[in-house]
């Protein structure tokens, strides 16, 4: 739909980066309209994870191709690979159900989902307006803080933008893990989770405890409803947000309409312009929003969302500073394994650990810990209360120092 669309304005967060002297030198691949978690659903083709790619190379030199590859995650997979491969200093993504943290995990990067409202959404094409945030992908925590301090802040063009004046986040070398109360939610070890991930989680929690943090188990009882809840709210917003794509003012317009009416023009344009994932979600969303279904699905989902949000509130009130959880269920799967499940099923599986932070609007950060037995990154996640980015980043920095994750380095010829 937007293949040849050139935006007539610049997004606020990008404007801020340019204003601070950043050089923007490209746009990256993603799942169409942010719907997906593998960066496969793109008319430009899939993006391959740079990690573990050599294993599948066939042929040599410039004629080599790949028999298979590891997926970079999604939907912001292109941005993750760009940063992981060293092409750029940092990249922006978006995070609605985990779309920044998921690829960060698979590509061994810091992936920050900021507090909802901290970064302006003016210029972010909406997926789910009430959950979307621009995301930040970097190789180190320091880089992440640098970018965050530039792009955060109130924007009058975004009515959901936070108006308060928050000081810049400072990564302090004196920050200590001593006394930081970290919670380990029971519900986050889900069926199908890779044993290596679970082991990594345990081991790192022990490291935290040894470093002086108070680590203890706790519960987020409504976690298991998060996926179903998202499965209703997402399509509803999608159906609404995609209604503007009719090909009249911008974007793809079908060159040969079969029917001689405005309705016919719309239908064909939208059929041609959207992939099957987008169309499926539009239909589902319209179904849920029908008058007779509204209370059964949409209203119910809103109530469950409130319960999930309240779970987190209770946790912060009971004294926990942060939560420590897995972020993806495994290291990066291969493309051939990944496509065994369809898009909808796949996203409902992969979003398990990341989704609930978007429900509650709270910040979450994916950080790489170690390589698994296959040499692929394993990452874990920190979740904090609203506007706790300073604490999140400082704790992440401590962990980063301790685990010393082996970043990719370019090898000179």
């Amino acid at each position: 739909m937007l293949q040849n669309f050139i935006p007539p304005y610049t997004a606020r967060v990008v404007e801020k980066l340019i204003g601070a002297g950043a050089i923007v030198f490209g746009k990256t691949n993603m799942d169409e309209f942010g719907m997906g978690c593998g960066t496969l659903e793109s008319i430009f083709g899939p993006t391959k994870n740079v990690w573990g790619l050599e294993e599948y190379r066939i042929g040599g030199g410039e004629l080599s191709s790949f028999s298979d590859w590891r997926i970079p995650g999604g939907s912001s997979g292109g941005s993750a690979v760009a940063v992981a491969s060293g092409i750029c200093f940092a990249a922006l993504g978006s995070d609605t159900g985990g779309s920044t943290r998921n690829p960060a995990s698979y590509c061994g990067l810091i992936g920050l989902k900021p507090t909802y409202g901290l970064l302006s959404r003016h210029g972010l094409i909406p997926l789910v307006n009430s959950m979307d945030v621009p995301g930040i992908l970097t190789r180190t925590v320091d880089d992440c803080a640098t970018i965050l301090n530039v792009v955060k802040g109130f924007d009058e063009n975004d009515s959901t933008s936070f108006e308060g004046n928050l000081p810049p986040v400072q990564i302090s070398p004196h920050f200590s893990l001593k006394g930081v109360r970290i919670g380990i939610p029971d519900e986050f070890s889900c069926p199908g989770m890779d044993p290596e991930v679970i082991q990594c989680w345990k081991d790192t929690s022990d490291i935290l405890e040894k470093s002086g943090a108070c680590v203890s188990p706790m519960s987020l009882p409504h976690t298991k409803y998060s996926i179903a809840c998202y499965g209703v709210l997402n399509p509803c917003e999608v159906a609404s947000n995609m209604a503007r794509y009719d090909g009249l003012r911008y974007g793809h317009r079908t060159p040969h309409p079969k029917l001689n009416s405005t309705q016919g023009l719309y239908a064909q344009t939208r059929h041609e312009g959207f992939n099957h994932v987008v169309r499926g979600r539009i239909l589902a969303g319209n179904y849920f929003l029908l008058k007779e279904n509204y209370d059964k699905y949409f209203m119910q989902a809103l109530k469950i969302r409130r319960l999930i949000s309240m779970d987190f509130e209770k946790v912060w009130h009971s004294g926990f500073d942060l939560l420590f959880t897995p972020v993806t269920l495994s290291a990066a799967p291969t493309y051939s394994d990944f496509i065994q499940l369809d898009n909808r099923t796949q996203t409902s599986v992969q979003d398990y650990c990341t989704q609930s932070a978007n429900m509650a609007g709270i910040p979450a950060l994916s950080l790489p810990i170690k390589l698994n037995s296959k040499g692929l990154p394993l990452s874990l996640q920190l979740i904090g209360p609203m506007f706790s980015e300073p604490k999140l980043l400082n704790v992440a920095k401590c962990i980063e120092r301790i685990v010393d994750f082996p970043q990719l380095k370019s090898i000179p010829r």
Partner: protein
Amino acid sequence: MRTPSILNKLKFGHYLIPKDFNLVGGIRSFIPRPEGWESVIGIEVHAQIDTNSKLFSSSEVKYGAPVNTKVSLFDAAIPGTLPVLNRKCVEAGILTSLALSCQINKVSYFDRKHYFYADLPTGYQITQQRKAIAYDGHCKFIVYTPGFHKKPYYSTAKIRQIQLEQDSGKSIHDLNSNRSLIDLNRAGLPLMEIVFEPDLKDGEEAAALVKELSDILLSLGTCNCKMEEGSLRVDANISVNRHGEGLGTRTEVKNLNSVRALVNAIEFEVRRQIQVIEAGGVIVNETRSYDSQMKETLPMRDKEVKQDYRFMPEPNLPPLRLVDIPDEEADSALVNIAQVRQRLPELPEMKRQRLVQKFNLNIGMAILIMNTPGFLTYFESVMELLPLPSGVRVAKVLHKVAIPALSEQDIDLDSCPIPHHVFAELYKLVESDTLNLVKAHEVFILLLNGDSRNPAQIVTDKVWMKVNDDEAISTICLQILSENSAVRAKYKTTKHEKHVNKLMGAVRKATAGKYDMRKVDICLRKFLQE
């Protein structure tokens, strides 16, 4: 299908209107309905808020601007743009709601109403469905069409709610080239939708309500109420039922762009519905449009299927929160209802009551004064120079002398060049029985054309003083009667009034209108009896 009996009913059917309709309004409509039928009407008014920019974007609001020049990125639904609420629109909404005696919701929400149409760029309209800014109000209005209603009566229409919402763009269908032309200048313009309960009985009442509402909105400055420009649009919900039965199925008539269209559309639709039912048919709940050339309502093709608008809360706009802090010093980032309340001006009904109380006018005259451009201001200024009790007569002289003279030159009282004190002098001459109205009219015209003498001087110079002398009147009456013996004879046989009028006319002509015509009348009739 019409049968002769129905035709007869419509042509000759009527019921007797009770003689003394009091000011509360009768149970039945003044407009005759076929025996046993009554009509029920409720209107929905869309009023464009008169602000500089649109409801959610900073595009300029300007009627008649070149096509598609007042369209921001948000108005064109460019991806990634977000709505930002215009504070002045909220204040206008509150001011209007207060003037219409509504309850204000301190928290209200915005929703998306989805449908596909070429003039709706986002594919949804941002409106207020769950909880609007105001509810439960009413509008008291006077129904009085001179020549139609015997005397004015009050009625009240309750208001269900007032909501803020976006206007759509405009589309023109070019059937010759088989294309539609879309102008988005109007897309996103702020509207107040005022939803009335079905409290109206006929088209004239609807017209009166719209008139009063327009006067109120104009005095508030929240809407310029130009129906012909589309800044005020009215939809009518119409149903009929037999006396004693419940409400019938209603139809909705949209796109009425003048008060006359409103009245005619309602009256046509009422007649149509009655015809259909009496012929054995049923009324379908449908949307119809009005053809002002054929003066009939027609079904609207695209609205045949019932629409499900799939309402969803607008996620990009937080709830609209208002405060009500009477403290004058209060400086609130939130819109303060109390501060808006202070800006309420004197509303039309208050003005009318004030005229009635202060000058002892009857309500009909008060209505006339307020409905005639410039009358109120001119009248009040003149009255500052004259004693209060003369108000009634001053109004009468303005009405019978000034207005006709000015309208001949196509000007209103607000552009009347005659200074107030000069008019006051003219009035005093009439009051003191020195001048009759016929001659007063002629003096006024002279003044209008630039005569710089004061009225008393003109009257003296032209010898236009009123002749009251009984003897002179007797003389002229006898003279006219002797010159018109044929007319006198005709009157003797037929006793028809027109003969008296003819004689009166002759007297007026012969005396250049100076004589006291009331006395002439009495005198003539006395002689005719003999």
